[in-house]
């Protein structure tokens, strides 16, 4: 149809020709020239109509109308720069925020992994039945599972390891790098090809310590070797060991974690890089993350079932434990760990809901703006209606105008979304040092999201004003410009409804924010079970300088003695693991005298090897029995201390002191329980009531290696007053003992911060959003009250003429504003009851109806509302009654 379109002038020419022919014919009949012409026209009918219809039938009218409306809309926007600016700014904020959050969520959770063929890649997690948290894998477990050939085409294991570049001989400027220990099939399974040289194969991962090779990441190669192509084959020293560079990875290959490793090294090199800690043979050391690729045609569920069978067989045969393990496979993504992912999903949902609400407030404000402006256009609309415009056409045109505004806002919002996610990540980064490689670019999904959101927004705030503006009360509008009170009343009602809605949403956000802030405070001051104040955690890198267990023990002893003489030091002790350190070690524990049987099971319990002062240094009270003594450390009958949770679990109601347990595999002798200590938080902040076994450090050479091996233990130093001074002194002492050794001290208190990062993010974000919402709502209140005062100028004038004082007028206006606020707040509180229930999981010990929060939010809102009403109210009082009465 379209290609048949004739030139617009063609039909006109044809009509003209027709008229001439007809005139000719009539002239032949005897009419004069003039009469013939007139008669011809009459016979034709309405020429203009015919031409119009002709024209219309040959075109896509809807397109014509659309272009017309578009041009008109743009012109309208240009003519009102003030209005356009305010509206677009508000929308930019709303849409931009939304898109930013979506970008983040998309980059972290929705995108497929940046590996080859991501659809078949899965994350692998294991969980012990009865425990809520997920556990990493041990190396023997991994090897056993790797043979699950029937369902997987490859199982990859990896773990992060910080390494010192260089190292060995005294290098004061040793640089730190983050390396990733990976199984040999890492690159083949994930499909990462080397840009230079080659990557590992299983060959390089066979014998422990046999293949000191490394693959560099592209970024690291650029940074450290200046992108020198001759780097392949060169060697780099990691923790003092010489590694050969096998190849450079491609620029886009980053693996399965958002952080980019600097180098990849084979798993079998773990023992060399961490000399005190051979995890390859340790069945009880769970430190590996796993990722796998399913075989084609095998579903995730089938693969999961297959692996479940394997892991349980392994647990039974290899670990000798009775516990049931289960494997969970999730589709590959950066944040796939089921317990974390659930949290992330709900967090993302809440955040998006929150920014969505802010956007709604913005929409309400713009809608109010549009309605206010529409009253100025009543005349124009009235004339158009009376000339025959359909209501639908009018609404269409007004909607196009609002869509233009929304698209403009969305376009600029996209720019906002370009740098805001990076800003957010910088500000809210968890305490990792590694750069995160999230794909935060603006690409098709983001773009379409923004486009759809903008259009939806345009409809949201444009529909009500358009509907209202096109109400065909034509007569009154043309006569007196629509200032009849009837119209005004219904219009202001809509304004008021919108503002109340804004305030309701604002209240919900503020309450949510308030509760999260309170929860954060609670989490930060949670009872740890020990006193973390002024305690230093000192890590010594003895393992990098050739120390063995015996020399390490010597070093520790000397350092401890020297520290204890210092005035500023209250107590010093050693520990294999630090509370809130993030690492836990467990061993199969046998309760009682007997070998494991059905009635007395053996299971995995976390153990901590500590020096005698430990409980004193951390301020952990001893509830029963005694602590460790110096004799225990020197050798003697093996002893152990347990915590309350363990006591309750295995000797409920009884006294465990004097009972025996075996803290390890059968090679370890039975130990006598000599004391019970109060519960403390474990390796992670949420581990509050877990059973723990404490074993004394042994200064003899005989005994279980976990207790005699002091390499890698941390020092805990309680300072009397100022921990920083102690740290400095400690560094000096260490240097005096051995100039090569470095000591890094951190405050134990700081580690709490690491665990509350999540709450911190929640509290910060929601507070920011809540305040933004408050600002927008305040602007909304101001706008509506301002408008209302202008509309009611006459009324104010009459009141004042009849004797009302300025104060009365002030009270009137502010009172109206407060009434709106009250209504909105009431609705908001009701809604928030439901919302906070959803959030209850994140509210750490804070009731959803926390009165402190409720009261503070109410006060804040009232104060802001009064302020927002005050300025228009003042303006109302300045009205001169005489002028107002004449105002029309």
């Amino acid at each position: 149809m379209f290609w048949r379109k004739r030139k617009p002038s063609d039909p006109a020419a044809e009509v003209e020709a027709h008229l001439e022919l007809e005139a000719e014919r009539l002239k032949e009949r005897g009419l004069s020239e003039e009469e013939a012409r007139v008669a011809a026209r009459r016979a034709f009918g309405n020429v203009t109509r015919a031409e119009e219809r002709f024209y219309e039938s040959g075109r896509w009218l809807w397109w014509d109308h659309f272009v017309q409306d578009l041009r008109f809309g743009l012109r309208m926007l240009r003519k009102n720069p003030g209005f356009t600016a305010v509206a677009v700014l508000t929308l930019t904020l709303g849409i931009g925020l939304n898109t930013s959050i979506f970008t983040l969520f998309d980059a972290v959770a929705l995108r497929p992994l940046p590996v080859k063929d991501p659809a078949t890649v899965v994350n692998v997690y294991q969980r012990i039945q009865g425990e809520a948290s997920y556990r990493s894998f041990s190396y023997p477990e991994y090897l056993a599972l790797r043979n699950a050939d029937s369902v997987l085409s490859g199982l990859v294991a990896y773990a992060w390891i910080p390494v010192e570049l260089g190292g060995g001989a005294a290098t004061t400027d040793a640089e730190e790098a983050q390396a990733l220990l990976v199984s040999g099939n890492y690159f083949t399974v994930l499909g990462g090809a080397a840009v230079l040289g080659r990557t590992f194969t299983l060959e390089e991962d066979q014998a422990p310590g046999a293949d000191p090779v490394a693959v560099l990441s592209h970024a690291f190669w650029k940074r450290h070797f200046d992108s020198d192509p001759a780097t392949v084959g060169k060697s780099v020293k990691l923790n003092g060991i010489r590694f050969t560079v096998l190849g450079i990875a491609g620029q886009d290959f980053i693996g399965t974690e958002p952080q980019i490793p600097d180098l990849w090294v084979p798993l079998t090199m773990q023992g060399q890089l961490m000399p005190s800690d051979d995890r390859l043979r340790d069945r009880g050391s769970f430190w590996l993350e796993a990722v796998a690729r399913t075989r084609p045609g095998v579903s995730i569920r089938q693969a999961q079932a297959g692996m479940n069978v394997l892991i349980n067989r392994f647990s039974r045969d290899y670990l000798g434990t009775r516990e049931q393990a289960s494997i969970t496979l999730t589709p590959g993504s950066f944040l796939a760990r089921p317990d974390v992912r659930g949290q992330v999903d709900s967090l993302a949902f809440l955040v998006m809901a929150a920014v969505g609400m802010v956007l709604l407030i913005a929409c309400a404000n713009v809608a109010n703006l549009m309605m206010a402006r529409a009253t100025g256009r009543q005349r124009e609309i009235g004339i158009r209606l009376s000339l025959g415009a359909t209501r639908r056409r009018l609404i269409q045109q007004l909607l196009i105008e609002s869509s233009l505004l929304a698209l403009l806002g969305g376009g600029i919002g996209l720019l906002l979304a370009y740098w805001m996610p990076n800003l957010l990540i910088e500000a809210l980064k968890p305490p990792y040092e590694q750069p995160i490689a999230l794909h935060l670019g603006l690409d098709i999904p983001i773009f379409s999201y923004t486009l759809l959101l903008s259009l939806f927004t345009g409809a949201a705030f444009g529909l009500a004003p358009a509907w209202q503006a096109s109400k065909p009360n034509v007569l009154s509008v043309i006569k007196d410009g629509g200032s009849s009170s009837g119209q005004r009343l219904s219009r202001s009602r809509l304004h008021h409804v919108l503002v109340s809605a804004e305030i309701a949403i604002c209240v919900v956000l503020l309450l949510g924010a308030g509760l999260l802030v309170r929860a954060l405070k609670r989490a930060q001051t949670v009872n740890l079970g020990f006193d973390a104040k002024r305690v230093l955690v000192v890590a010594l890198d003895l393992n990098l300088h050739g120390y063995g267990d015996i020399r390490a023990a010597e070093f520790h002893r000397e350092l401890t003695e020297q520290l204890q003489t210092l005035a500023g030091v209250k107590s010093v002790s050693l520990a294999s693991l630090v509370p809130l350190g993030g690492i836990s070690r467990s061993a199969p524990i046998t309760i009682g005298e007997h070998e494991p049987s059905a009635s007395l099971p053996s299971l995995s319990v976390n153990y901590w090897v500590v020096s005698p002062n430990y409980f004193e240094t951390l301020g952990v009270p001893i509830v029963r029995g005694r602590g460790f003594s110096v004799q225990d450390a020197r050798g003697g009958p093996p002893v152990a201390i347990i915590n309350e949770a363990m006591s309750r679990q295995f000797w409920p109601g009884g006294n465990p002191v004097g009972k025996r347990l075996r803290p390890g595999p059968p090679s370890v002798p039975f130990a006598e329980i000599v004391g019970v200590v109060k519960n403390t938080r474990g390796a992670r902040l949420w581990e509050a009531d877990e059973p723990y076994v404490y074993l004394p450090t042994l200064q003899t050479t005989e005994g279980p290696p976990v207790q005699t091996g002091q390499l890698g233990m941390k020092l805990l130093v309680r300072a009397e007053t100022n921990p920083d001074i102690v740290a400095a002194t400690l560094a000096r002492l260490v240097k005096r003992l051995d100039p090569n050794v470095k000591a890094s001290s951190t405050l134990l208190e700081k580690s709490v911060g690491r665990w509350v990062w999540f709450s911190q993010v929640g509290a910060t974000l929601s507070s920011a959003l809540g305040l933004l919402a408050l600002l927008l709502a305040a602007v909304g209140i101001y706008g509506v009250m301002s408008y209302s005062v202008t509309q009611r100028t006459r009324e104010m004038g009459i009141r004042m003429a009849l004797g009302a004082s300025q104060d009365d007028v002030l009270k009137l206006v502010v009172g109206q504003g407060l009434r709106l606020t009250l209504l909105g707040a009431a609705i908001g509180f009701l809604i928030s009851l439901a919302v906070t229930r959803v959030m209850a999981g994140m509210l750490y010990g804070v009731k959803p109806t926390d009165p402190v929060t409720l009261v503070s939010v109410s006060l804040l809102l009232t104060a802001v509302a009064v302020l927002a009403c005050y300025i228009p109210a003042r303006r109302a009082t300045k009205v001169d009654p005489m002028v107002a009465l004449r105002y029309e």
Partner: protein
Amino acid sequence: MSTQKEKDRLELLQGTLDVLILRTLIFGPQHGQGIGRAIQQTSDDELLVEHGALYPALQRLEERGWITAEWGISTNNRKARFYTLTRPGRKQLVKETTKWRRLAAAIGRVLGPEAGEG
């Protein structure tokens, strides 16, 4: 811009006009004015067609491919756009004519013999 009522009337007329136009063109190519005059004359001035109404109908028929059009010179040396019936147009004419005759016959049967025919 046409309102809804006008559109309705137009559609009814278009159906009828279509078949009249096609019929007229059986006798050979003709321009718009000629077609209008022919319909009027052949119907003994019973059917008074607004000449203006012809053109949208002609446009539609042209779009459907039942007639083709070309600028030419009329009998008295004036420029005019001539319309010709196409083969599909012929077929359509037969179809429509049959329909119309059947409709007219059926109505006639219902109405019965003409009263006052003597």
